[in-house]
């Protein structure tokens, strides 16, 4: 606690110096984060470089984006004067949720009519990760996080993520397939049943299916090209010294 008090006076100067932090309630929010960062170097007082580095970060720190779980903290701060923050900023940045107990989700609290609502578990974990991505937290030995996504059964993942996309892709494949079959039939007179016996048509079918699977967005074309280049890039870097061997023919 005394640590937080010690870091109290310098932050107030930052508050007055920086004109960007105007009178919005979210401004108090963004100030709290820098205070948190400052408290760390203050606990390591012996190095001027460390403190000045954190100063640079304070100036650069971005304002927090709107986040539903942030509303709790906003309510807490809006009632108070901007400068009188010491007891609150320590608690504020930790992720808190009544269903998050002992470093994992308490599945009993997710029960709906006797069975666990896995969708709600997935939603809760998504919000937790989003929160932590925007506000990285310290890890602590007394409070370890032990949640493992594999406790959510495979069919819950399938239902939520795989099935909608599968529907989409199957729809695309069906449309392309019907259209191509019609086109080939009109051009060559070969019916659907006879097309299946032809090797060229089977190849076309394979290309269509793999195309639908691999290329789902326009960016995927570039991504695939980059991936292929990536797989052999490291090998090329290692071989570079041997290209030299053929040019500088020894002796």
């Amino acid at each position, binding site marked *: 606690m005394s640590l937080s008090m010690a870091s109290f006076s310098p932050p107030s100067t930052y508050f007055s110096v920086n004109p960007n932090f105007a009178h919005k309630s979210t401004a108090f929010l963004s100030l709290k984060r820098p205070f948190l960062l400052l408290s*760390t170097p203050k606990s390591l007082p012996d190095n001027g470089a460390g403190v000045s580095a954190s100063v640079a970060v304070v100036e650069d720190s971005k304002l927090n984006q709107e986040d539903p779980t942030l509303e709790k903290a906003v309510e807490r701060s809006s009632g108070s004067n901007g400068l009188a923050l010491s007891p609150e900023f320590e608690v504020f940045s930790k992720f808190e949720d009544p269903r998050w107990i002992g470093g994992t989700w308490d599945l009993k609290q997710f029960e709906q009519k006797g069975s666990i609502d896995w969708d709600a578990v997935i939603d809760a974990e998504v919000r937790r990760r989003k929160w932590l991505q925007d506000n990285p937290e310290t890890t602590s030995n007394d409070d370890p996080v032990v949640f493992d996504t594999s406790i959510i059964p495979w069919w819950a993942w399938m239902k939520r993520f795989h099935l909608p996309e599968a529907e989409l892709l199957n729809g695309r494949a069906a449309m392309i397939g019907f259209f191509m079959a019609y086109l080939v039939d009109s051009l060559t007179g070969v019916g659907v049943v006879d097309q299946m016996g032809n090797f060229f048509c089977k190849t076309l079918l394979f290309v269509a299916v793999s195309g639908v699977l691999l290329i789902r967005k326009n960016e995927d074309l570039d991504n695939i090209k980059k991936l292929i280049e990536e797989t052999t890039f490291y090998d090329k870097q290692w071989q*570079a010294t041997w290209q030299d061997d053929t040019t500088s023919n020894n002796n």
Partner: protein
Amino acid sequence: MSSIAFKPFTGLRRSSAVPCPNPTATLTKPVVKFHVSAAKRSPKLSNRNLRVAIIGGGPAGGSAAETLAKGGIETFLIERKLDNCKPCGGAIPLCMVGEFDLPLDIIDRRVTKMKMISPSNIAVDIGQTLKPHEYIGMVRREVLDAHLRDRAKENGANVINGLFLKMDMPKSWDEPYVLHYTEYDGKVGATGSKSTLEVDAVIGADGANSRVAKAINAGDYEYAIAFQERIKIPDDKMVYYENLAEMYVGDDVSPDFYGWVFPKCDHVAVGTGTVTHKSDIKKFQLATRNRAKDKILGGKIIRVEAHPIPEHPRPRRLSGRVALVGDAAGYVTKCSGEGIYFAAKSGRMCAEAIIEGSQNGKKMVDEGDLRKYLEKWDKTYWPTYKVLDVLQKVFYRSNPAREAFVEMCADEYVQKMTFDSYLYKTVAPGNPLDDLKLAVNTIGSLVRANALRKEMERLNV
């Protein structure tokens, strides 16, 4: 047999009359033939041993010098700062202790547990599969480097305190390399005196900013910046790090590497690194300290240090009779950023190739002899480097990939494979059925983590 041995000998003394059975009409052809075969078969050095200079006295230079000196070569080890505390993680695998006969007292700590921490702070302990005699050794670089150099000196190497400036290339196969360096002669703070040294071969072991590499136009490589702060934490907090090291992954800590807390002799080293966002390194360091905040609370920073780490080998690792080893060649693995063992091993391998090519210092070496070291190195360690490269590409890509990585680390099979490969430097093949299960689990983890990330993005919008 005697006639064959005779040929190269006469090649050296081209002027003397050769009792050759061929008529003089064909004298021109045999002369040319002798000249070429003499160079190919590295002529004997008369009344002196082969002289080799090693620039840089770190693990690579020290082990190369020891091996060369033991092999009967006249060795010169040029090091600019004999008490240098190289900024380094300081982790050495178990096999290094055995292979290099390291005394156990230079190992400050034996790390037997590691904690991997994901971006959402999911913490996984690894190390349960380690046997009681297995550990990762943490050393102080100044202690290790000095030990290896002293051993080289004991075996007959000449250790010179000097700063390498430049080198004159030889014009022909039997001319020496002339090294220009500033000799400090053990005096601290003195400007030193310019000296030269003539040697037959040079090993560049002078680290990531190698001057030898520049001298032979070895080309550049991409490098990561590793930034580290040594923090003295209170004793009760130090107990937690008694034999445990931590690895933090996440976009906040590093976009393409990891942040770490490694225990040293009486303090911890907290650091991080990056290749692509070097200008944000201080921000990443703060984030790393933030993630470990509770555990290093009350600590005092006693030293701040940074150093480049090569990401891949230089385009040219060898030129003429100059070879690069260690960080100068770029032998740092991806994913873990490990370099000490590979530096020492490559120094030793290069020295062994020189000894073999020169037949214990009796003959002159040429580029072909040094290339044998490159061949052996690439053949032995290429699988290790490639596997780590693939791991880095797959698991350090993005936050979901890192979440999957930490989740996978909880699996016992993964832990066993990882530690076996790390501690003994062999890509252990493992059981195919378990490998298949591992592949399925990996894909599952990656799919789940990416699905969660897609939901996260939807939440933002």
